[in-house]
């Protein structure tokens, strides 16, 4: 029965990937796919860059992977992972199996899986792109995600493993009114996971569209069907192995690519960076595109400027705010928290975080080599002509270092890197669906509606059905969000995790007086503040700003026309586009009815995290709860010693 369903899934996906060959490719997907976090803040208006300063040589404008090789690699990944699902499905009979893989994952395996959960396509494609276009700022951007494991390692992982069972709700409801807190925690988990999930789905859809001309709808549905299949049938066991496979593929691809760059640079970092500084194309790019100096400033070293901060990250306060979100947000992400419960003990949880930290740290370090390598060996002009956000840098570099476009080596390596990106997306979305389903099935259904009295068979059935619903909802929302600005959603997920979840987790583990009122007000106020600030921040789309930018282009070009100049075809096109944009957007307002952002930072962390903490503390102090204080001894002894640990295999 199960095998039949899975082969049906495989068939649907096969259709989904092959069918598009017959459909005409959509002609417009040239803009940045905004794969996620890293791509988020590429300044809008980069496309109206220093037009006509130097006539650039005709550049490649599309990555063209070899469809046959790439699709066979995709199918190989799908085949292997579905094999894992069939294997895991047979071994998933209890709730503990479904949510925590029966506690039977080792520290080493879990470390790879956590790293797999955390390294998204955004970091793989977006961050190297950022470095290739903005130099050292992109490398600085990558420090945050590498650092975010520190807080998890030091204060979150072990205590949570000792005090919890499957979900965020389990940890927070330990000594509070369980039903209220579980409901709020479930709501927050579903919100965070769905935001993140939709952003990933939209990124996946756009990536597949750009790479393989697979229509957006087909790829969102294809990815969605697979992820539901993994989670509904294989539960945590399958999800974990999908993560491990993905992390292994991603690390091999990254190591190999970085190694090729280093070999090309003769293993000499000083010479490598000297070449970057002296590269005329990088110098031109910094001067014209980034700094917009039409005439070179005398004596200014534009090449060296590429290695100096401030080309991309311009507001120090925003950087600090982003730094806070990275440092605390990861510790509040429900799908990461959930992974601690798959290992048998706190010691193994600690080991898994250390392993994840090393993998993750090495990954982001290697991304810097790839990014700078892409700038030097491809040129920023080429990278931004293919995608103005730089998201295709890694792929282009793989093609080039594999032997160049059209060569077998180039095709093969490019296909492999595409397949890695595909596996990455599949793994990340599966982890998110599992976390959201666990919150609904375990917290809401089993513990709120059934008072914790449901037999194992029912629990697993409910969890499976829930994941089907969550997955379907994600597909539908992903389809609806095609034209939306999903970048805000990633910022939102991290901000909510850092401002709502994190303060509550920390206080419930370490503060005796913390109680129900504290959890509810902390989660609610932290979440709402983060949400509200993002809604009025510059990451939203402001039609008025688009109209104003279009107006500028119109003025420049119309002036040129009026002075008797003849516009090139390209200029005529952009004039037409600008007129259209102006007409469509003039006088328009953002989703929240604003013409311009009120809150000027892209990241709300610097305000919303302290607000979340204060709300949690005030809520607690307003309503004193003796019972919560008495139970603190128990949770504290448990979290410190691991006594009475809830073995995931206990029922």
């Amino acid at each position, binding site marked *: 029965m199960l095998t039949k369903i899975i082969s049906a899934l495989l068939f649907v996906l096969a259709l989904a990937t092959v069918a598009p060959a017959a459909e005409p490719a959509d002609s417009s997907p040239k803009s940045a796919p905004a794969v996620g976090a890293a791509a988020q803040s590429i300044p809008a208006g980069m496309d109206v860059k220093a037009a006509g300063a130097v006539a650039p040589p005709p550049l490649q404008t599309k990555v063209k992977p070899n469809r046959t090789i790439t699709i066979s690699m995709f199918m190989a990944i799908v085949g292997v992972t579905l094999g894992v699902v069939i294997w895991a499905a047979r071994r998933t009979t209890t709730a503990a199996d479904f949510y925590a893989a029966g506690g039977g994952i080792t520290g080493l395996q879990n470390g790879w899986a956590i790293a797999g959960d955390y390294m998204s396509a955004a970091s793989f494609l977006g961050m190297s792109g950022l470095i290739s276009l903005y130099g050292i700022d992109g490398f600085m951007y990558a420090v945050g995600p590498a*650092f975010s494991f*520190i807080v998890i390692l*030091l204060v979150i992982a072990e205590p949570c493993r000792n005090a919890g069972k499957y979900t965020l709700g389990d940890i927070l409801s330990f000594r509070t009114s369980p039903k209220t807190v579980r409901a709020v925690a479930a709501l927050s988990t579903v919100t965070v996971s769905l935001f993140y999930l939709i952003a990933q789905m939209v990124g996946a859809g756009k990536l597949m569209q750009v790479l393989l001309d697979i229509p957006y709808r087909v790829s969102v549905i294809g990815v969605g069907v697979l992820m539901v299949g993994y989670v509904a049938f294989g539960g945590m066991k399958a999800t974990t192995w999908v993560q491990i496979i993905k992390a292994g593929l991603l690390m091999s691809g990254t190591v190999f690519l970085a190694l090729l760059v280093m070999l090309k640079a003769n293993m000499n970092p*000083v010479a490598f960076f000297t070449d970057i500084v002296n590269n005329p194309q990088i110098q031109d790019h910094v001067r014209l595109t980034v700094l917009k100096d039409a005439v070179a400033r005398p004596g200014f070293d534009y090449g060296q400027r590429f290695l100096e901060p401030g080309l991309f990250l311009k507001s120090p306060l925003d*950087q600090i705010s982003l730094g806070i979100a990275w*440092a605390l947000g990861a510790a509040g992400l429900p799908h990461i928290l959930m992974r601690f419960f798959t290992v048998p003990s706190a010691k193994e949880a600690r080991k898994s975080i250390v392993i994840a930290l090393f993998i993750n740290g090495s990954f982001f370090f290697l991304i810097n080599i790839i990014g700078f390598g892409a700038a030097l060996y491809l040129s920023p002009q080429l990278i931004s002509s293919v995608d103005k956000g730089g998201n295709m840098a890694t792929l282009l570099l793989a093609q080039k270092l594999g032997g160049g476009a059209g060569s077998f080596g180039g095709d093969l390596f490019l296909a492999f890197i595409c397949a890695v990106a595909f596996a990455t997306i599949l793994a990340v979305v599966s982890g998110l669906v599992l976390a959201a389903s666990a919150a609904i099935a375990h917290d809401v259904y089993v513990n709120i509606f059934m008072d914790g009295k449901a037999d194992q068979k029912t629990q697993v059935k409910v969890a499976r059905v829930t994941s089907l619903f969550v997955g379907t909802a994600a597909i539908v929302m992903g389809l609806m969000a095609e034209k939306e600005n999903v970048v805000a959603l990633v910022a939102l997920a991290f901000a909510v995790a850092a401002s709502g979840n994190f303060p509550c987790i920390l206080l419930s583990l370490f503060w005796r007086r913390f109680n129900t009122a504290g959890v509810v007000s902390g989660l609610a106020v932290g979440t709402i503040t983060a949400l509200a600030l993002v809604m009025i921040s510059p990451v939203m789309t402001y039609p008025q700003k688009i109209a104003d930018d279009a107006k500028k282009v119109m003025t420049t070009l119309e002036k040129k026309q009026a002075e008797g100049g003849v516009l090139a075809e390209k200029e005529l096109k952009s004039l037409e586009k600008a007129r259209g944009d102006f007409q469509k957007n003039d006088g328009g307002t953002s989703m929240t009815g604003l013409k311009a952002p009120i809150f000027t930072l892209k990241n709300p962390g610097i305000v919303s995290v302290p607000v979340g903490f204060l709300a949690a503390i005030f809520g607690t102090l307003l309503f004193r709860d003796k019972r919560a204080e008495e139970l603190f001894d128990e949770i504290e*002894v*448990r979290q410190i010693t691991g*006594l009475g640990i809830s*073995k995931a295999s206990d029922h």
Partner: protein
Amino acid sequence: MAAKSYDWAKIARNPKYLELRRKKRRFLFSLWFCSSVYYFLLPVLSGYFPDLFKIKMIGVINFGYLFILSQYVMTFCVAIISTRMANTEFDRLTDELVNEVG
């Protein structure tokens, strides 16, 4: 639920437990604090003192690049230090305590 029940309040007053708790808290929170200070130095220095980042150290490689690299080294060091402390000190104290009360 675990089969065995414990007298949590009694364990919470056990001197061995109090020692473990004090050592763990002091060590982990101060390590967290120090690494965070170092981490936030990055946006603060690069944002407010960009000239510092521009000082060339090895050929064209400047202080900024090396400082960013040092963040990775710091992260790895924190992981190694805390693992060593946990494996030797904390696990030993925990085992002693668990043997005594369990």
